[in-house]
């Protein structure tokens, strides 16, 4: 386990200036659906089951229109982020995107975005799911800390898996944020990454090297419809520990960095079911009001960058003030992150 303490001045001397989030951009498709009418039936969810609607806590989900590609959504979010930051594209040195659900597999969405913006930037794409938010943010922070020639990093992520119900209502959208050397807002003070051996619950049997596609391959739907997932293994191996698992990065970060969990003003958590997120907060011994559970109501879960969307929204709605201490709890594909920031 490792933890990043507050950037230590003097380790790389003058290069170790603070790097804050200068702007956050969001793109959510205008098309919205009632998940209980549109998504719940396919997911086998019974809206009449007592307490279920309240537990999921989601009433509206943005779903991509036909023209909303991952790259177009990410680009829109990137423009929004740069506009909010007051930064010209030419100032961007590095662009980081994600590409499990990009326009094409193994495609350089980051390169597309850099080109579309007119940025002369080094680009790369992180191959991950919801955890790409944590990985990208961590990579951006490390690049800025280590490479004095880099002053501005743009993270632009998108997800286009909406319409599913596993195990929360899933929407589509994109989020981008700009980290800039010398920016004094939303400075990451410390972070913790937990990537450990976890139960393997699902596998897509065909398509990889072990069982390649052939001329007789047969399946319905798309790849996400064909993942062989063991519900039994989930219930037996993961469900009993999942709340603790999701709460652990925050607790470990606090312990290792000497921070009091109750000293945080807001905690942003990747959207799961409303009831589940409330359990995480309860497990942390914190009041429910510390996390904006209501943000799940009209978004569902899009990706790990739910936390950044909620952060932007909280700033816009005046839920947080300058000087507030914030935490971002991100998890996906078995990997967990916690970042502590000061607004």
């Amino acid at each position, binding site marked *: 386990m490792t933890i990043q303490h507050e950037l230590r001045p003097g380790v790389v001397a003058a290069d170790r200036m603070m790097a804050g989030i200068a702007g956050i951009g969001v793109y959510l498709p205008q098309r919205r659906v009632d998940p209980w009418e549109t998504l719940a039936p396919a997911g086998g969810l019974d809206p009449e089951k007592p307490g279920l609607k309240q537990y999921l806590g989601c009433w509206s989900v943005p779903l991509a229109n036909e023209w909303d590609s991952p790259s177009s959504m990410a680009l829109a979010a990137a423009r929004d982020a740069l506009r909010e930051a007051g930064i010209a594209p030419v100032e961007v040195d590095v662009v980081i995107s994600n590409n499990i659900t990009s326009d094409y597999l193994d495609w350089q969405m980051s390169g597309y975005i850099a080109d579309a913006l007119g940025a002369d930037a080094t680009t790369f794409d992180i191959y991950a799911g919801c955890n790409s938010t944590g990985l990208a943010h961590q990579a951006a922070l490390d690049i800025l800390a280590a490479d004095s020639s880099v002053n501005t990093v743009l993270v632009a992520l998108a997800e286009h898996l909406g319409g599913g119900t596993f195990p929360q209502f899933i929407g589509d959208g994109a989020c981008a944020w700009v980290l800039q050397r010398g920016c004094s807002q939303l400075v990451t003070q410390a972070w913790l990454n937990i990537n450990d051996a976890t139960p393997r619950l699902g596998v897509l049997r065909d398509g990889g090297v072990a069982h390649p596609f052939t001329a007789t391959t*047969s399946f319905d739907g798309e790849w996400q419809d064909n993942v062989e997932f063991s519900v039994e293994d989930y219930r037996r191996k993961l469900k009993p520990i999942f709340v603790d698992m999701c709460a652990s990065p925050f607790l470990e970060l606090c312990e290792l960095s000497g921070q009091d969990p109750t000293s945080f003003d807001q905690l942003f958590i990747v959207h799961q079911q409303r009831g589940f997120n409330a359990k995480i907060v309860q497990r942390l011994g914190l009041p429910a009001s510390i996390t904006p559970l209501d943000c799940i109501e009209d978004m569902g879960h899009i990706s790990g960058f739910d936390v950044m969307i909620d952060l932007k929204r909280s700033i816009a709605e005046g839920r947080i003030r300058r000087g507030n201490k914030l935490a971002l709890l991100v998890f996906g594909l078995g990997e967990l992150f916690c970042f502590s920031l000061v607004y």
Partner: protein
Amino acid sequence: MKIDGLTLGGVGRFLPCHLAAVTVPTMPDPVMVPAAGSEDLPYAMATTAVRDALLQAGRDVEDLNGQYLLVCNEGPGDYLFQLAGRMVLDDLGVGRAHTYSFTQGGNSAVFALYLLACHLANNPDAQRGVVLATQHWKYHSVGRRLGDAALGDGAAAALLERGGAGPRLMAISASSEGQFHDIVYSEVGGWAVPMTEDPCRNGRFVYRVHNERAARFVRAVTVERADAVIARAMDDAGIGWDSVDAVVLDTATPDIAEGFARRFPIGRHRLITPGLGHAWLCSAGIMFALARLLQEMSVPHLEPTLHGGSHVLVISLGIDANWAAAVMEV
């Protein structure tokens, strides 16, 4: 970026023992490439390469706990949509670690070293990291061809460590040209062509060149574009061309190698082009080249002759429009 205190502990490799013949238009004879057998799955090859790197460095698998493993993501792994690094770490028996896969194109090991160096610079608790690339192209390429390259199978792992007695990493620089983002990729599996039965049954789930015009353009200008990246790396390392003793240039294209030899002031005998006329192993290729170079450095009658204090320039460039250059002192 200038780099302090990081050395190459070892470069582990795995090459299958089978061969396959690939016809490449720019080559007079078929290129013989290593071809994975039925037991040589990507994760298994990768695990072997990592173990090999650890062995060279005198390290145990436990020494990867809490450390870094970065995976250059090109070809598919054993199964799709898995985090290859985590799969390999699980197979090795490593617990907590920092690992992710990233895509930059088809030749990103040097850039991976840059990322790893950034992570290690900012994490005083970590001592080492691995850059890993594993290749298996029998089922996910067009006849094992990618542009001028004949794709081979295998895996390589470069272990970078804090301190140590191995070759010292002095500087790395990188650049990209976003307008060429659509040259190589897998058509099927994203938003544009969802992974449904039809394209998968009809052989479209392959990694190949899609934008031929852009590929030709990049091939024509890639040496010129490498100029600035190389200059930055050498500047950060504080060396000039007169101090460069060997250049490792991983390219499958004869014109590129010739263009490089014409453009830069390095004698032809000091230019090492392992990919030329041989198998192309994408990001693993340059690590193989590095491993071979370091292995041969003590053999005096083989040119280039390297000795302690020699400077090696390692350059990756390809048709994915990303360039990276690293300066090492062996």
